[in-house]
């Protein structure tokens, strides 16, 4: 502590001047964890390989799966499921959220029903989906879409409900109504909250992906998890977890870039 306090002004100054300084800062803790992991499995030898394999073993497992092509297949199918599920869920959430957020009639008619569906924990739909759709590709994508739908719906709906009535009145006072009012005042006003909803929905999509793949699948990262557990391959299990973390973070960062672009134009 005392050494950092000795140069209090230099530290933030340097963080600003170094390009990618924030990335380095954010990488510090993961690197520390990696170092600890290496320490307790290698030099200190506190765990057996079946309890906690060394980082190197996990990397080897990854290389092994990469060489026989299985890794790409697992990652590919999982990403595809998440993207489809997220897309359909988000589109449905945007449409229904807009409808209920803008029309008092539609809101009065449908909001209690949607609210009741939202009250059901989404995983409770699994048995029904299994019976009606089966847990093939369609069933998995549907489950992910359900997971993505509610965050988007809720954020669009409540954001439209809470658009500053002063701004809406000003728009009307200057002769805007209907679609023109919507595109001039209401939609731009809800861009920031809708993006928070979308990012939440993306996280939910990954959650539901794993749930769907744990239940029944022959490929995908969730399948890799359950298969590795059955075979006692803790190295592959850890590999799947690390991959999920990397993929989740990457897709979120991509959405974050789009969000920043949108906020620049709209907020």
């Amino acid at each position, binding site marked *: 502590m005392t050494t950092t306090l000795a140069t209090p002004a230099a530290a933030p100054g340097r963080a600003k001047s170094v390009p990618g300084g924030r990335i380095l800062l954010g990488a510090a803790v993961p690197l520390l964890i990696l170092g600890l992991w290496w320490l307790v499995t290698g030099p200190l030898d506190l765990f057996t390989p079946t309890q906690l394999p060394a980082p190197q073993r996990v990397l080897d497992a990854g290389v092994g799966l990469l060489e026989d092509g299985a890794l790409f297949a697992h990652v590919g199918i999982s990403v595809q499921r998440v993207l489809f599920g997220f897309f359909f869920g988000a589109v449905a959430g945007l449409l229904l959220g807009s409808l209920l957020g803008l029309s008092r009639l539609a809101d009065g008619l449908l909001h209690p029903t949607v609210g009741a569906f939202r009250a059901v924990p989404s995983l409770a739909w699994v048995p029904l989906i299994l019976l009606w759709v089966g847990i093939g590709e369609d069933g998995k994508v549907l489950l992910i879409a359900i997971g993505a739908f509610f965050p988007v719906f809720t954020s669009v709906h409540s954001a439209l409900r809470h658009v500053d009535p002063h701004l809406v*009145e000003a728009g009307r*006072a*200057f002769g805007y109504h209907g679609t023109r009012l919507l595109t001039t005042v209401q939609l731009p006003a809800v861009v920031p909250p809708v993006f928070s909803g979308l990012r939440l929905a993306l996280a939910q999509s990954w959650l539901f992906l794993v749930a769907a793949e744990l239940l029944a699948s022959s490929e995908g990262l969730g399948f890799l998890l359950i298969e590795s557990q059955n075979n006692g391959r803790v190295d592959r299990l850890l590999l799947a977890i690390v991959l999920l973390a990397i993929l989740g973070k990457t897709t979120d960062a991509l959405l974050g870039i789009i969000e920043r672009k949108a906020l620049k134009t709209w907020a």
Partner: protein
Amino acid sequence: MTSAPALDQRHSAAASTQPVVPSETVASESLSVSFNDVGRAFDGRTVLRNVSLTVTPGEVLAILGSSGCGKSTLLRAVGGLDEGFTGDIVIGDSAVTRYDERTAVGFQEPRLLPWRSIRRNVELGLPRNLSKAEGQARVVELLELVGLSDRAALRPREISGGMAQRASLARALARQPGVLLLDEPFGALDALTRLKMQDLLLDIHAQTGTTVLLVTHDVNEALQLADRILLLGGRRSDTAEGATVKSLVPVPGKRPRDRAATDLAQLRSELYAGLGVDSR
């Protein structure tokens, strides 16, 4: 006619003090506003009653009254923002319509769209029937008029409160309203900025010639800007609920008036008394 400053003198007063030629693109056809027994009640509670007066084209009418007496309510009725009133309000020769396009409102808060530049916010006020080129020309001229040309590309949060109010004023003027409705437009500004905005409003009035209804709680502002002052409130002689026309007085002298003029002192203390404030 010489002792009592008549309303007829007002047009010449405004024209002679401001040698600016009304501009082609911002000048508007000023309209009269007639209130005929106007009343408004909210949930059975009367706020306004029996308001009758006629505002002549090109006049600046200041509306004074204590807080909550119904000044904004009256203004909103003229702008077609509120349809729950009784009686008739006639603008020019026809009754007020919903969001009446012959009027433009300058709200108490600037109400600018935060995601649009100042220029694009002013564009919001343009009438729809205008060609793109005409619209652009008008916006440029209005930004010049309110002194925001060099800030046109900024967002509302990047400019000061006074600038935001000027932008809001420019947006209202972009509509070329026959009647300009201003609801305490300078209320939130510091004293110095407010004086500058008052001068700006007089400039604008000289250039556009539009009828102005200006709600204010500032007696001095009313005396400085108005041709006549409408004082809203309860009459002492009756005990009925709700505010009505307590007095309607012409302001003596030509604009711009000397802010320290002594001949206004009498009227000033009368107005303060009307508002229930002892001016000494």
